[in-house]
């Protein structure tokens, strides 16, 4: 049987295949299939934990390589080195060979060591540098202090001799003019047996530090401190820290030791400072030399590291992709069942039937390239498992299909609502968004996105990506909005007057400008041929007319859309060969819906077709009341629409009511009858004995026989393959369940007929709101600008034009467009899809490198 071409109407035909591959080429086969991206492998080892699978070792090794590559990436980001990105559309990186992967693994191992050691030494050096800088600060600050303090030793001594004197008397008061006494002072510190501690401490700890010192030493200290103006960088975490230099004097060795301990415990760094100013000068000199040396070493290390990273940056993206692919391949191989004895990998997979030839030739190619004597075998098998749903899309249909898939995955081979959605979604949108100008703006935006598709694909802004993804939806929405704009005769709230109007003003005698006039139809039966007559624009009773028109328009549109959707359920029932769904659901449902709302639609059109102004035509009846009284008091007609109306309406009500019990009982009782009949003949529920077997049917070539013979003798292999065939639920027939389900369906359907029809009135509400909003925007902005005359008028026109244009884009196109889109989405998901959509399918998720890279967030950084 040649499989027919897959269309968007239904999901693609799927086949379950078994693959027998020699272990040596397992990797290559999976890689080739991953490039093809048409095969979804089933897990044959679901009872085996992740650690016990065959290729866990390889995956661990690749995880390590991946970690190393990520480490390089983070180092590059830290150093600000740009990554050479790759374009997945241009560079198709072929799957690597095993030796290439080994090489890559070794290389990244050694590179990691090198980068890490460079980093370590850089950090150590940096730390050393900071220490030296701190020391220099301490030396400088302490030096200044000493220079000041030497002048007033006497004072300090006095304060220490005198118990009443304040301990921390401000030293600076008396410093002026005493600098000449340096010679005496230098000796006097040691004479006084005063020791001191110098160091730096983070500024936020200074307060605590002072308090603790004061308490432990009972005030027996003299502390001086000053702030280091620039922030010092902590090399461990690269954060700037503000620090203070302190210098503490105290009497006696024990106190000094205590101070040292306290300061170290509070995270201060202590530095040795010499009392002697000459030695201090030497120290500063030494520190500066060392800083200079360190600086050059640091620069060297940094350039080496940067050079190393720049080199890695050239090929890091490609490596990342290779490792990701390799890892995915091994993860897939872990799904296979491995026959130890025969060194064969056995896999089961779903694939579209139409892709089978391509898959076969791929396998053949891989086998030939490897030059293996054992062939790979692909074998289609019959199964009673539900195949996954695969809707093939292209650039244009992808967005529309996503709308449907966001609601649910279609059942395998049911009618795909994505196909009509291509038109109905943008069209219902346009009914709400009908304005030629706004539609034109939308088309321009969408066309620009389609024209510059390639460069724009790279933009990673979230909002833009969303709009870009729906560019074809936007294009269709724009085109249909332009059409409905012509129908509504709205362009930025103004009207086109392409054709002559069907109306002419009745000008009474003695008419003056400003007086209200009414119009009447021209003679000859001429009507405005396309859209709404422009004479309605700006009239006093414009809303009266457009309300009635748009309300009826939305009822009619809703009726058409729902009837169309209901018909799809007929096609589904035909395809799944369940005639009871036709007779028990579709037909009574359709009759019920048509006898009420189909009739309403008929009366709307019928009323339009009658010339009520003709003599003897009577007065036009209100259709809403007619519909209500059709149910409340069948048979009584207040205002007649047509002759024989009463019996027809009674008939329609009766026929609608009769459908309710049919909907309720036909399907459950039919199913029960069918079930009992089957049991009466002695059949048991199927599935108990049905199983997928690799052993059925042997019409394949001779190669297959080898693989199969090996399997025959291997009981384990068969068991593995057929293990979860029994999982398929073959639930027992339960009448009560079926009945409850049908009751819910009936109530839902009948109530929904009413509520869904009413729900389409949103088309009226939104299109009216859109039109009124654009009128208001025009009158409030640009109309004012046009009304102003003189030089001010020029200015006003420009200003109001920009205000109008900006608000048109922001409010009328973007905001109103989003709201109309959401309403259209709802009409599809709820009102239309509830009529036919079964939606219990499993999505087809093929093993595909392309898809994998697209979904990977990390891969987004490198492309």
């Amino acid at each position, binding site marked *: 049987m040649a499989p027919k*071409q*897959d*269309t*968007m109407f239904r999901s693609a035909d799927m086949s379950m295949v078994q693959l027998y591959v020699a272990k040596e080429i397992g990797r290559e086969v999976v890689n080739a299939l991953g490039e093809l991206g048409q095969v979804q492998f089933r897990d044959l080892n679901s009872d085996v934990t992740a650690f016990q699978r065959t290729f866990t070792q390889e995956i661990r090794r690749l995880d390590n390589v991946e970690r190393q590559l990520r480490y390089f990436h983070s180092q590059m980001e830290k150093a600000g080195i740009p990554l050479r990105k790759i374009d997945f559309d241009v560079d198709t990186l072929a799957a690597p060979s095993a030796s290439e992967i080994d090489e890559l693994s070794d290389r990244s191992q050694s590179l990691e060591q090198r980068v890490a050691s460079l980093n370590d030494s850089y950090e150590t050096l940096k730390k050393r540098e900071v220490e030296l800088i701190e020391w220099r600060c301490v030396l400088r600050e302490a030096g200044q202090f000493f220079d000041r303090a030497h002048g007033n030793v006497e004072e300090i001594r006095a304060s220490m001799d005198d118990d009443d004197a304040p301990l921390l008397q401000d030293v600076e008061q008396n410093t002026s003019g005493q600098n000449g006494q340096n010679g005496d002072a230098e000796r006097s510190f040691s004479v006084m047996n005063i020791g001191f501690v110098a160091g730096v401490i983070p500024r936020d700890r200074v307060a605590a530090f002072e308090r603790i010192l004061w308490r432990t030493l009972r005030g027996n200290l003299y502390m001086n401190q000053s702030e280091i103006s620039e922030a010092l960088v902590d090399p461990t975490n690269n954060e700037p820290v503000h620090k203070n230099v302190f210098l503490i004097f105290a009497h006696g060795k024990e106190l000094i030791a205590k101070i040292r301990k306290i300061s170290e415990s509070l995270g201060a760094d202590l530095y040795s400072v010499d009392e002697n100013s000459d030695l201090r000068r030497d120290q500063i000199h030494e520190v500066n030399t060392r800083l200079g040396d360190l600086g050059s070493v640091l620069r060297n290390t940094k350039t080496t590291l940067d050079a190393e990273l720049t080199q890695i940056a050239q090929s890091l993206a490609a490596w990342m992709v290779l490792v990701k692919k390799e890892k995915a391949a091994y993860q897939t191989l872990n799904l296979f069942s491995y026959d130890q004895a025969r060194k064969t990998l056995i896999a089961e997979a779903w694939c579209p039937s139409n892709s089978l030839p391509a898959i076969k030739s791929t396998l053949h190619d891989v086998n030939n390239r490897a030059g293996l004597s054992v062939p790979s075998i692909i074998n289609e098998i019959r199964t009673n498992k539900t195949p996954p749903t695969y809707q*093939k899309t*292209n650039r*244009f*249909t992808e967005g529309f299909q996503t709308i449907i898939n966001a609601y649910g995955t279609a059942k395998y081979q049911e009618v795909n609502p994505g*196909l*009509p959605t*291509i*038109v*109905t979604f943008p*069209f219902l949108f346009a*009914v709400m968004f009908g304005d030629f100008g706004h539609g034109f703006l939308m088309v321009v935006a969408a066309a620009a996105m389609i024209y510059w598709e390639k460069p724009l694909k790279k933009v990673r802004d979230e909002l833009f990506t969303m709009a870009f993804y729906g560019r074809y939806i936007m294009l269709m929405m724009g085109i249909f909005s332009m*059409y409905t704009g012509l*129908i509504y005769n709205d362009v930025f709230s103004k009207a086109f007057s392409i*054709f002559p109007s*069907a109306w*002419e*003003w009745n*000008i009474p005698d003695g008419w003056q*400008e*400003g*007086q*209200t*006039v*009414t*119009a*009447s*139809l021209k003679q000859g*039966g*001429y*009507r405005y*041929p*396309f*859209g*709404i*007559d422009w*004479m*309605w624009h*700006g*009239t*006093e*009773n*414009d809303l*009266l*007319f457009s309300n*009635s*028109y748009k309300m*009826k*328009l939305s009822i*009619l*549109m809703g009726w*058409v859309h729902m009837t169309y959707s209901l018909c799809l359920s007929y096609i589904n029932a035909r395809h799944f060969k369940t005639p009871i769904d036709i007779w028990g659901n579709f037909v009574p449902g359709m009759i019920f819906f048509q006898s009420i709302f189909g009739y309403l639609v008929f009366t709307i059109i019928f009323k*339009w077709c*009658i010339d*009520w*102004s003709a003599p003897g035509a009577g007065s*036009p009846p209100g259709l809403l009341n007619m519909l209500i009284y059709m149910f409340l008091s069948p048979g009584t007609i207040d205002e007649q629409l047509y002759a024989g109306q009463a019996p027809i309406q009674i008939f329609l009500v009766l026929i609608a009511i009769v459908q309710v019990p049919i909907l309720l009982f036909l399907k459950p009782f039919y199913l029960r009858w069918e079930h009992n009949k089957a049991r009466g003949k002695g059949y048991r529920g199927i599935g108990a004995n049905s199983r997928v077997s690799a052993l059925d049917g042997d019409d394949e070539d001779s190669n297959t026989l080898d693989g199969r013979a090996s399997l025959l003798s291997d009981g384990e292999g068969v068991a593995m393959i057929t293990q979860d065939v029994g999982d398929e639920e073959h639930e027992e027939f339960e009448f009560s369940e079926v009945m409850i389900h049908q009751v819910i369906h009936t109530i839902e359907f009948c109530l929904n007929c009413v509520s869904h029809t009413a729900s389409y009135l949103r088309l009226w509400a939104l299109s009216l709101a859109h039109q009124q909003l654009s009128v208001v925007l025009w009158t409030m902005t640009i109309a004012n600008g046009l009304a102003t005359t003189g030089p001010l008028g020029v200015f006003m026109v420009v200003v109001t034009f920009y205000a109008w244009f900006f608000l048109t884009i922001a409010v009328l196109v973007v905001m109103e467009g989003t709201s109309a889109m959401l309403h259209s989405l709802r009409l599809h998901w709820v009102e239309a899809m509830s009529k036919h959509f079964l939606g219990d399918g499993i999505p087809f998720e093929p093993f595909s490198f392309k898809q994998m890279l697209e979904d990977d967030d990390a891969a987004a950084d490198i492309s």
Partner: protein
Amino acid sequence: MATGWSVIIGAIIVVLACLAGWFFAPKGETQTIWRSSLILSFASCYIMWAITFLAQWHPLIEPRRGGLTKHAIHDN
């Protein structure tokens, strides 16, 4: 021009257009998409137009307007 018959004539034209859409849709993988989209577009556009036309065929109210200038009133 543009009398009650237009709706019928329009319907005929749209049916012909639909047939053309069915038969002249580009062959290949996208044929179904072309056919469905063309026919649905023709049908929806026709329905919208026909509704608008019918709603104005026998109007129950006529336009009423104040504030017109002499110039505007003789313009049509």
